[in-house]
């Protein structure tokens, strides 16, 4: 399959089943899909995996800042030369997302990172422990958020 065929197939998948998605093509190699309902995230990824488009390169989290008060999570699937980006938004307070561990074992490391660095709770994670941060890192302080202040670490 060439890049165009991959992206056409992916567009077909994400626009079927009445899934609430919005697709766009920021460049010829990339398909951006906004997933509006968190319940639909896992089924969409399963559908991509079934069609062999589900090679997950990375999960990236963007902090949109205290004003927007939201975090954006990007799931980058890279079959061949194409990039399929699934984008979901979660509120900064009490953020949670379904874990992909059951369908993509390799997603575990990315999810553990998101959990400790951005404070998104991953539901269904096999090993919810810290991956990178030290054991004595204070709870509730997420270093990759935009408003992280290192002074908070030395408060006591």
């Amino acid at each position, binding site marked *: 399959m060439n890049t165009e065929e991959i992206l056409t197939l992916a567009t077909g998948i994400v626009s079927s089943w009445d899934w609430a998605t919005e697709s766009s093509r920021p460049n010829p190699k990339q398909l951006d899909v906004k997933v509006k309902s968190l319940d639909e995230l896992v089924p969409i990824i399963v559908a991509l995996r079934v069609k062999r488009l589900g090679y997950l*390169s990375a999960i990236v989290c963007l902090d949109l800042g205290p004003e927007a008060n939201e975090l954006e999570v990007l799931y980058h699937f890279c079959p*061949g030369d194409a*990039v399929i980006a699934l984008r979901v938004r979660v509120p900064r307070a009490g953020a949670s997302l379904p874990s992909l561990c059951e369908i993509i*074992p390799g997603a575990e490391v990315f999810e553990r990172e998101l959990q400790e660095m951005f404070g998104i709770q991953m539901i269904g994670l096999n090993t919810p422990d*810290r991956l990178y941060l030290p054991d004595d890192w204070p709870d509730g302080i997420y270093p990759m958020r935009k408003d992280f202040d290192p002074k908070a670490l030395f408060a006591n």
Partner: protein
Amino acid sequence: MATNKEPERFTISIGPQHPALKEPGSFQFTVDGEIVTKAYVRLGYAHRGIEKAAEQRNWIQDLYLLERVCGICSHIHATAYCLAVEELAHVEAPPRAQAIRVLVAELERIHSHFLWIGVSAHEAGFDTLFMYSWRDRETVMDLLERLTGNRVNYSANVLGGVKCDIDAEQTTAILDGLNFLEERARHYFDVLTNDSMFLQRTRGIAVMSRNQAEVMGAIGPTARASNVARDVRIESPYAAYTQYPIKMALDTRGDLEARFVVRVNELFESFRLIRQILATLPEGELTARMPRRVPAGEVVKRVEAPRGELYYFIKSNGTDKPERLKVRTPTICNMTSVIKLAVGHQLADVPMILAGIDPCFSCNDRTVELTDTDRKTSNIMTWEELRRYGIKFYEARK
């Protein structure tokens, strides 16, 4: 009342000191007798917060920061970053610069694979091979130094191009070096596929089927040894790989031996490619002009590091600093396969399974803790002792 008939179970912690790696790790293996029944990884002992630091530096400072993510594959990090920023700024580096980027990347791959042959031979107790391969690696290190002025962080890239050119004298030196290295690589191929003592440690060990490799998200030579045709240089050619296509090294067996065969075959392909680039190096400028501010946008850039796909995501907000920069190194993806493959194997095979993915390590002296989970006692062993234990175990089986 607890019976004493239950097999003794130990939890073995390997690590955490693992300094050469961006992600130095602590592993815990639960063993039932000799067989590993559970594996667990904990990383972050040298997490330096580079992604956060990159948000606070400007585009030029970030180049030098990111080149220091890894000491072995420094050039490929800088290349991925430069290509990503150039794409955001709609600048294309001149053809000569792109060819030199690929040339340095392939020299780096040669140095990395020679290093790995040595490290994994050492883990198997074959120290002669380790010393010879590291001696030969000096040849390629010297070539890199001659070309760029540096042995480790070559700093060949700048935003918009490269800063080193290749003249006739350097071309001759590289070609001479390659002839020597190719002859040595042929010898290693022979040793790695024919030495019966070494094959005992690699053949049929840690077999990963194609399906397993795909499910676990294995990448790079580790995946290609399981016949997963995934190589960014071919799937999504970047820099000069469109003009200089490579042939993918694949193997169907999926064991440790296959991982050796694939990496040595990649060496031959790198030799061929470097000769081809030197023969047909395009003339022209080395750099294109880069703006100080990079337009707002997002970019995903993937390149093939010696260990597999290296992924960069950059979001720019139109200022002189990136809004978000994400680096995903290949080892983190292959780590999942170590955790899953170790289960069911002998404890003595663990060093080789870990070395099989080429996890960027130079440290041989890590602490290994043996804990009897029933009796809550613990027994500390160094990595060196575990390595010796593995070698002795196989000696006893002869």
